[in-house]
């Protein structure tokens, strides 16, 4: 065990909120050695971010912190919760730096990025003028910002999310800190960018010899990245061990559950003679970006000519990074967006149908969206939401029959039918996603578009939703079009995979074949980024 750098003892954080007290962190202790990487892992609400933010005393005013945080820094051993705020400021950004989850909003939008990095040097070093400017350029080079001489005078809005996170890292490293606290630094980024940022952090850690406290919900990253792991749940550390030990022999049930929650299993193949249920030929979607009165409109081509065949009982996975056009493709197939090219569903050519001739078909092709908070109308009860489709497609049903059908659908997604009188905001993310599935199922569809249905959920909840989707597919012989950026989930669910980039298909084929021997460089890059742990 290396020399200890940070020792947290019995940390407790409470939030005072309108006469009520929330105990966000209760009794957390761990130690971080010099040069070591410790991962704090947990699902949302586990208190992992709060604990890490408490170290630099950056929690909002209504938080009260107890316990002890011992720091072995330039002044010997000191207790961070009781040092003067003047001393605290000497530590922040100098001995301990922090990077955050939100790269898009963590930089001051009104200041040039070079100046924002130089401010740290101004504060903590004696570098001034030309020497300081030189150091900023050097830092930009180290974190891989292209054309650093010019970039120093850019504003944040001119940079992509990945580049902004690089600027944050440059800022954090400016004074060569002994400890870097990284709070979900890659969660908001695409997988390939995520992989680049992680390897950048690894390289810089070796170069500067600093310790990293890495906060994440992603066990894949942990396995690849951390020396030791603390698993947190409900504000407590339930297990801490070296990474190897933890994955080899998890001791706590919750850890085991988290590890098991990694998607696994494979889809049973379908008969090759299965009939085609949906087919698209040369499908294109373009959006008008800027409509002007007297000048030609600017367009953005989101989907640029795609052919697709989906057979009965099949699950077709569509993967790609943000902006690849995968969601647009899904919406165009259901004719929720204007498109050109042909779409056939069952025996019908959808291409020239208008909304009223399309309506009867809608009960057989349904959709479940990503956002469990945005996909349910907040002012309707669950019963009203689930029965809305019945009112359109089966106006002949009596009220009682309607209620029965709704109850049936809710039971099917393992929800209590008595919940139909409640409103969506009373449910958790996973429950809302079940309601959204019930809304689609109540119409007894044959084809289901699943647009990132599990992406907004914690891993453990995700696993149960995936299990539900599997069961439903078998029970009702459903056909799925599964859109996701998460390759692990797609691998576990899909028969065939379509890889999209910039509105085009890069590669498509049988799931296992594609994951084992990808033909295209882009596919290889995606897979490498997504399965970090297996590559390492």
């Amino acid at each position: 065990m290396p020399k200890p750098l940070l020792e947290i003892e019995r940390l407790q954080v409470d939030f005072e909120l309108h006469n009520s007290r929330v105990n966000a962190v209760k009794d957390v202790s761990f130690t971080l050695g010099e040069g070591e990487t410790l991962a704090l892992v947990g699902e949302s609400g586990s208190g992992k971010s709060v604990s890490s933010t408490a170290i630099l005393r950056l929690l909002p005013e209504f938080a009260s912190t107890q316990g002890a945080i011992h720091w072995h820094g330039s002044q010997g051993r000191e207790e961070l919760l009781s040092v003067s705020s003047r001393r605290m400021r000497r530590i922040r950004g100098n001995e301990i730096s922090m990077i955050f989850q939100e790269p898009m909003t963590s930089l001051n939008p009104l200041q040039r990025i070079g100046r924002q990095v130089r401010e740290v040097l101004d504060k903590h070093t004696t570098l001034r003028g030309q020497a300081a400017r030189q150091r900023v350029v050097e830092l930009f080079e180290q974190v891989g910002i292209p054309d650093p001489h010019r970039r120093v005078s850019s504003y944040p809005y001119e940079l992509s999310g990945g580049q902004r996170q690089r600027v944050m890292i440059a800022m954090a490293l400016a004074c060569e800190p002994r400890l870097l606290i990284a709070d979900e630094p890659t969660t908001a980024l695409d997988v390939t960018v995520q992989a680049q940022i992680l390897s950048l952090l690894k390289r810089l850690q070796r170069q500067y010899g600093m310790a990293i406290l890495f906060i994440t919900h992603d066990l894949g990253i942990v396995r690849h990245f951390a020396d030791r792991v603390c698993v947190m749940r409900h504000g407590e550390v339930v297990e801490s061990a070296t990474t190897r030990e933890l994955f080899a022999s998890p001791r706590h049930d919750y850890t085991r559950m988290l590890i098991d929650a990694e998607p696994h299993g494979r889809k049973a193949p379908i008969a090759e003679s299965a009939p085609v249920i949906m087919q698209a030929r040369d499908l294109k979607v373009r959006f008008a970006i800027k409509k002007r009165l007297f000048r030609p409109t600017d367009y953005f081509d989101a989907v640029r000519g795609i052919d697709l065949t989906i057979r009965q009982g099949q699950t077709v996975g569509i993967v790609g990074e943000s902006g690849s056009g995968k969601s647009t493709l899904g919406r165009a197939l259901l004719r929720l967006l204007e498109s050109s090219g042909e779409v056939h569903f069952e025996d019908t050519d959808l291409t020239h149908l208008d909304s009223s001739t399309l309506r009867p078909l809608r009960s057989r092709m349904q959709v479940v969206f990503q956002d469990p908070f945005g996909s349910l109308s907040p002012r309707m009860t669950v019963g009203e939401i689930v029965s809305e489709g019945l009112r359109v497609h089966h106006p002949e049903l009596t009220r009682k029959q309607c209620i029965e059908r709704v109850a049936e659908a809710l039971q099917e997604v393992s929800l209590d039918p008595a919940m139909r009188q409640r409103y969506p905001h009373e449910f958790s993310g996973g429950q809302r996603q079940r309601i959204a599935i019930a809304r689609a199922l109540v119409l007894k569809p044959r084809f289901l578009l699943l647009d990132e249905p599990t992406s907004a959920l914690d891993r453990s909840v995700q696993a149960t939703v995936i299990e539900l989707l599997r069961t439903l597919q078998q029970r009702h012989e459903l056909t799925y079009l599964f859109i996701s950026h998460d390759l692990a989930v797609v691998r576990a669910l899909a028969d065939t995979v379509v890889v999209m980039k910039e509105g085009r298909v890069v590669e498509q084929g049988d799931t296992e074949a594609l994951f084992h021997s990808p033909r295209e460089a882009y596919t290889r890059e995606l897979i490498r980024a997504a399965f970090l742990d297996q590559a390492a």
Partner: protein
Amino acid sequence: MTTDTTTLTSDTGDLSAGDSLGRDAWRRLKRNRAAMVSLVLLIFIAAACVAGPWLTPWGLNEVNWDAFRSPPSLEDGHLAGTDANGRDLLTRTLYGGQISLSVALVATFVSLVIGVLYGAVAGYLGGRVDNLMMRFVDIMYSLPFMFLVILLMVVFGRNILLIYAAIGAVEWLDMSRIVRGQTLALKRREFVEAARALGVRSRTIVMRHLIPNTLGPVIVYVTLTVPKVILLESFLSFLGLGVQEPMTSWGVLISEGVDTMQSAPWMLLVPSTFLAATLLCLNFLGDGLRDALDPRTH
């Protein structure tokens, strides 16, 4: 960190079964003491204005020949004194309140109807139509409206219906912008797309999914429009361009009070107090409603 704390608060702030957002907001409003006091006071002022003139022993234009410009006193029954013509000031102020409040309600209603319809249509149709409709609103915004209203009053004479219409026509602009913004944001929400995927008709989507969800901001805006309209009407009346004798309004009374404020300050103070109290309460209530309906304050 923010995500952590918000999930935590939503976990502890557990809600009982079958609770609608509206009732939830009402409960939060009830905790806001300033807003509740304002609400009670507003109801009291409104009730006094409606019923008051029957309760006071004097009529609107009834002259007490024994009391010209007499200060407030209990003995002669003129609780708020009399004006230069010997008319009871309290009676006149309550009458004036009827006019001021009714102008406020009618004009707000006019602006509500025009604004909600215009905004919802522009937002839902989107594209070129939206562009054109909002361009028109932009142009209207940059007109010196107050002055056009005055011009209107000058040309067509001081007609109370005209005041209703003119003020309503000014105030709908903000409302339409708010509703349009809401509609645009809601249109992109996935529950609207889900409804379209279910085959729900456009009209039903607007009525069932869009308009109910714009209600929150609209209610808040209405409480903020009412004081603005009261102020506008008083402003016009103060200049002598609003309602005319024999009718009166708070603005007219204040204007009369200004002329005599040295000799009879109560003539300025009584109507001013009513006006200021009403405006203050409406502002408190609007602020309270905004906090209660803002999802971020849960």
